């Protein structure tokens, strides 16, 4: 009797486990907002420690609390904000800070262009609002969603809004808590975004041409970083990689 009970329990447990796995994996089955929360989770894990680090550095650089939070609201671009804080601390002129921000963030131009063909039915103001929160991470998540046909607007704005809110909040916490922020490295949280990019890159890779373009662009980015062009590496490697893809495609078709 006991044995039967135990077997039963084990079976129910297994069923429950499978159901949970299905629930986590089956993002389509969720409500739009629930789907957004699930997909934004790794972004939050990545943003919170980096956003807090930005807050700490902004404080040290002499930015006011209001300005620290305002940069996260108005500019909302991780690496550019960290670079800008360093430049403020070094007393660089505003124009060179703005010029550097332009170069560092120019890669979003390509991301915006590549999302555009999926948004034919959207109103202009919706596009303008959505574009405000295009980051490396939100782009990566949306491009995979769009590729599998999930164009739900609530999910789109849910992901973007929650991601930016976590970034703003983390900046503020970093400013207030200063260096007393606990080290999150033992938890591997700094690997959340690289691991997310791995998953999203694989989900985007649907044929041999994609593998070829991915390898070529990655190699190009490495060469560009090694050549000292790290601020241009992503955008140049992407342009070269996509052009290479179209080139090889039309060459092999002939």
């Amino acid at each position, binding site marked *: 009797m006991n044995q039967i009970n135990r077997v039963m329990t084990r079976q129910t447990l297994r069923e429950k486990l499978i159901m949970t796995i299905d629930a986590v994996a089956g*993002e389509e089955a969720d409500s739009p907002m629930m789907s957004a929360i699930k997909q934004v989770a790794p972004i939050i894990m990545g943003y919170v420690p980096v956003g807090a680090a930005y807050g700490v550095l902004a404080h040290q650089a002499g930015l006011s609390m209001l300005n620290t939070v305002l940069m996260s609201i108005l500019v909302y671009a991780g690496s550019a904000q960290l670079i800008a804080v360093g430049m403020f601390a070094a007393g660089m002129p505003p124009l060179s800070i703005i010029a550097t921000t332009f170069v560092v963030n120019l890669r*979003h131009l390509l991301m915006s262009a590549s999302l555009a*063909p999926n948004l034919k039915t959207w109103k202009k103001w919706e596009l303008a609002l959505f574009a405000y929160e295009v980051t490396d991470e939100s782009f990566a998540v949306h491009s995979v969603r769009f590729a599998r046909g999930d164009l739900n607007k609530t999910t789109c704005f849910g992901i973007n809004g929650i991601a930016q809110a976590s970034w703003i909040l983390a900046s503020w916490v970093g400013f207030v808590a200063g260096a007393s922020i606990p080290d999150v490295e033992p938890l591997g949280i700094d*690997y959340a975004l690289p691991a997310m990019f791995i998953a999203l890159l694989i989900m985007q890779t649907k044929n041999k041409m994609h593998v070829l373009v991915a390898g070529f662009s990655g190699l190009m980015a*490495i060469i560009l970083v090694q050549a000292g062009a790290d601020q241009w590496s992503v955008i140049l490697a992407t342009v070269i*990689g*996509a052009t290479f893809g179209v080139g090889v495609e039309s060459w092999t078709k002939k």
Partner: protein
Amino acid sequence: MDQKVIFLTFLGMLAVTYIPRALPMLALASRTLPEPVVRWLSYVPVAVLSAMLFPALLLKDTSFNFQPDNYFLWAAIPAFILAWRTRSFFGTVALGMALVAGARYFFG
């Protein structure tokens, strides 16, 4: 630096960040693009993701790092395999983080 100057600098940063984010989307979304352009754009996601990811995994500053303590690289191999076999977004992130955390715990 004066907080007002810092704030005005943000407005410049906002402009140079927002325009590249918004302009292509606003200009292209309602248009039917020529076929080669669509094909080119279809390669952008894989290209841009690899361009961000590969240097982060393989380089330390500007030189290749194949040392055993490059946990980001070694954790990426099982993460790639898991992502490829299961297409699981969550599983990949969880495995990657667990491996990096575990490696730091056991090997420092």
